[in-house]
């Protein structure tokens, strides 16, 4: 296994969260029994069934208290401070510490302990928060539990576990939903918590930029649709057909595209028309007609099988179909009067906001211009003071004006820690900053970010 941060001699700590029954203990047992040569200390909240020779398992008493008289953002785990302190004294040092939290625990105080307590900070670094997501029960829990949403939002790694208990479509829907909340976590699919160790331990080197490459749309403005496709259509009646999929309805908006069919025009059209994509759209039964005007409609997919709607085209031209989901999920097809399938002449995948019912989302910011350190300090400081309660994680790799090293920042609620990293070298100096939080205001964050650019 490669060390995440070579110069950092502190002991890495992995925090394992997830609701009861999500598979934390199974994963822990896997980690402990696998031949990795690491000496691991496990801090549990209660005596579990783990009894492995090579590991030290310590019983902790999940004990949260507030620092500085009452600020919720400064709650820490007192038991962790004491236990980690005692562990650090031992001569036979550990290579890795794993902290397992109770199912309902808010990961905030655990994470904050690594930012607030000087003694802990000195000896340990928070390597990552791994959240196990029970594929079967999490969708319901996300509807009714703040704790479940927080555990998703805090994660550096999301393990979608117990996938053998759900259909592929349900797994895809869950993945989309958790992605909508936390766009930068590494996503690992698993059954029986079977996860390669290097996906959950020593992820400190986990590069933000790689996460961003994988999901470039995440850096763009968010729209209520995930996909747009431009079709060249003759006047007359066409057919839009969909198969039933992971959701009972799928919304669609059709608009005339007056200019051209390109990626750029699609993005411009998205910006022009997204307000017509309404949340409480009229539900349209199969067989009815979709017109290239008016607000979006929710196509009714409650019955199994393939369904068809009429697409009425007043005059020959380019038409853009904005679709709530990806076309693959519902096998979206546009056919002409002779039933020939028409290929779109241009398509674009959009960052979707349709999970905003969860209120938790990610906002990514990016710039090729260097960042002014003082302006950034002032902006981030104000932002965290005012919005810290709603900001679960802040992560960034920044090219500060006048500095040759990458500057890496990590934060939990109001607490942010920044340090210089390796030199940029030949790498393009691109600054990236990501927030995961509740009710994030993307345009305000973008404006703030722009004000920090040198």
């Amino acid at each position, binding site marked *: 296994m490669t060390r995440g941060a070579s110069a950092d001699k502190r002991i890495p700590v992995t925090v394992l969260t997830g609701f009861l029954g999500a598979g934390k203990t199974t994963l822990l047992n896997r980690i402990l029994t696998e031949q990795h040569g690491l000496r691991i200390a496990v801090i549990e909240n209660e005596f579990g069934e783990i009894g492995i020779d090579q590991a030290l398992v310590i019983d902790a008493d999940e004990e949260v208290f507030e*620092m500085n008289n009452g600020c919720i953002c400064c709650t820490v785990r007192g*038991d962790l401070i004491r236990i980690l302190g005692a562990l650090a*004294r031992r*001569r*036979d040092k550990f290579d890795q510490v794993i902290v397992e939290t109770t199912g309902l625990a808010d990961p905030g105080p655990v994470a904050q302990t690594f930012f607030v*307590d000087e003694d802990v900070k000195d000896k340990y670094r928070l390597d990552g928060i791994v959240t196990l997501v029970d594929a079967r029960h999490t969708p319901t829990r996300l509807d009714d539990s703040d704790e479940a949403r927080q555990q998703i939002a805090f994660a550096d790694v999301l393990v979608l576990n117990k996938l053998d208990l759900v259909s592929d479509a349900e797994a895809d829907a869950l993945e989309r939903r958790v992605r909508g909340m936390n766009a930068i976590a590494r996503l690992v699919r698993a059954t029986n918590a079977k996860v390669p160790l290097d996906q959950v331990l020593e992820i400190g080197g986990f590069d933000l930029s790689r996460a961003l490459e994988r999901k470039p749309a995440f850096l763009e403005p968010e729209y209520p649709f995930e996909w747009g496709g431009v079709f060249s259509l003759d006047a007359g009646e066409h057919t839009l057909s969909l198969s039933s999929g992971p959701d009972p309805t799928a919304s669609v908006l059709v608009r005339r595209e007056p200019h051209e069919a390109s990626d750029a025009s699609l993005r411009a059209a998205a910006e022009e028309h997204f307000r017509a994509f309404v949340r409480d759209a009229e539900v349209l039964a199969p067989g009815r007609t979709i017109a290239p005007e008016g607000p979006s409609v929710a196509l009714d997919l409650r019955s199994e099988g393939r369904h068809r709607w009429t697409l009425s085209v007043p005059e020959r031209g380019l038409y853009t179909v904005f679709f709530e989901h990806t076309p693959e999920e519902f096998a979206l097809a546009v056919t002409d009067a002779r039933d020939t399938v028409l290929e779109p002449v241009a398509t674009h995948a959009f960052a979707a906001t349709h999970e905003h019912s969860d209120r938790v989302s990610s906002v990514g910011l990016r710039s090729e211009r260097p960042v002014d350190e003082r302006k950034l300090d002032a902006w981030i400081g104000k932002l965290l003071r005012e919005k810290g309660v709603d900001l679960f994680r802040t992560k960034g790799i920044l090219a500060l004006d006048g500095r040759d090293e990458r500057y890496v920042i990590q934060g939990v609620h109001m607490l942010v820690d920044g340090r210089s990293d390796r030199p940029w070298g030949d790498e393009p100096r691109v600054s990236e900053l990501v927030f995961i939080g509740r009710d994030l205001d993307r345009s305000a964050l973008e404006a703030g970010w722009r004000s920090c650019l040198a």
Partner: protein
Amino acid sequence: MALVSSVEPRASQFERPARWKFDAGDYVAAMSVDPRDELVAIATSAGAVHVVRLADGARLWTRELFSLGAHGVDWSPDGATLLACGQDRFAAVLSRDSGDHVFKLDGGGPWVEHAKHAPHGRTIAIAAGKIVRFFHRDGAPLLETPRQASTITAIEWRPDGNELATACYGGVHFWTPSRGISARQFLWKGSLLSLAWSPDTKVIAAASQDCSVHFWRTVNGRDSQMTGYPFKPLALAWDAKSSMLATSGDKTALVWDFAGKGPEGTAPIELEAHRALITKVAFHKSRSILATVSEDASLLLWEPRRTQRPVAFGFVDGVASALAWTRSTGVLVGDDSGAVACFDAQ
């Protein structure tokens, strides 16, 4: 090593070489000097307890007691037995001469972090997690406190031995083992980490996670807080006259003056010479000499009422982690490498 820049002139006359050194093998977690002034008990994070002669540092006995580390050692007031506690759910009462178990006390929780004899010797208190258990000196259980709101971080007997103070998140609680109830409490919304009762019993001081020292006047519960420490001022020590409270929390030791109207509204005496964070502070049992040790691997001796410069110094091998005075003029310093060094303050 040009460590103590402000010791001058002729620094060598102030340097105290170690009289002897003992290798305890691992991080020295705690030390206790026996009341007859003949032995020192040493607890290590590897779990061993060593008993060493003060005269020459020779080992009397060693016991590997706790597989996950020893936390504390405390001699009985008559010096006949040693009380030791650690991470294996128990405290042990051991014979002075051989280290053999006299009896074991069940802590009721996995980490027995504190174990102390009442100064009159009749009662033993041990704390594990959120409870304290009291035992008669012969090992008979007396009573157990209700589960506290959070883990007990410190216990301290009132100098007369009739009351035990415990610290945890939310304040200081007082227990009278003969009555079995929490007689009173001083509440404060914060996490308290250590306790120090003034020898005259009039003030109890506590270090706080919020990098402050909180103290209460025990007569009326009136409290004050000293803030502004850059780090947690975990180590607190009173002088024999209850007139000075020395505190860690920085590389400068602060000594608060309780002799006059203060310390509220007064400036503390600042003792500045260590190069790194002070880890332990201790006043001599009867004289106004203060010892401080630090992460800089040095011992400094001070007479705070007389001068703000150190009056003597010595060196150890690593980060100092434990400090104890003998009844006479010896100072013992344990460090994170497992070395215990004995210095003479004279």
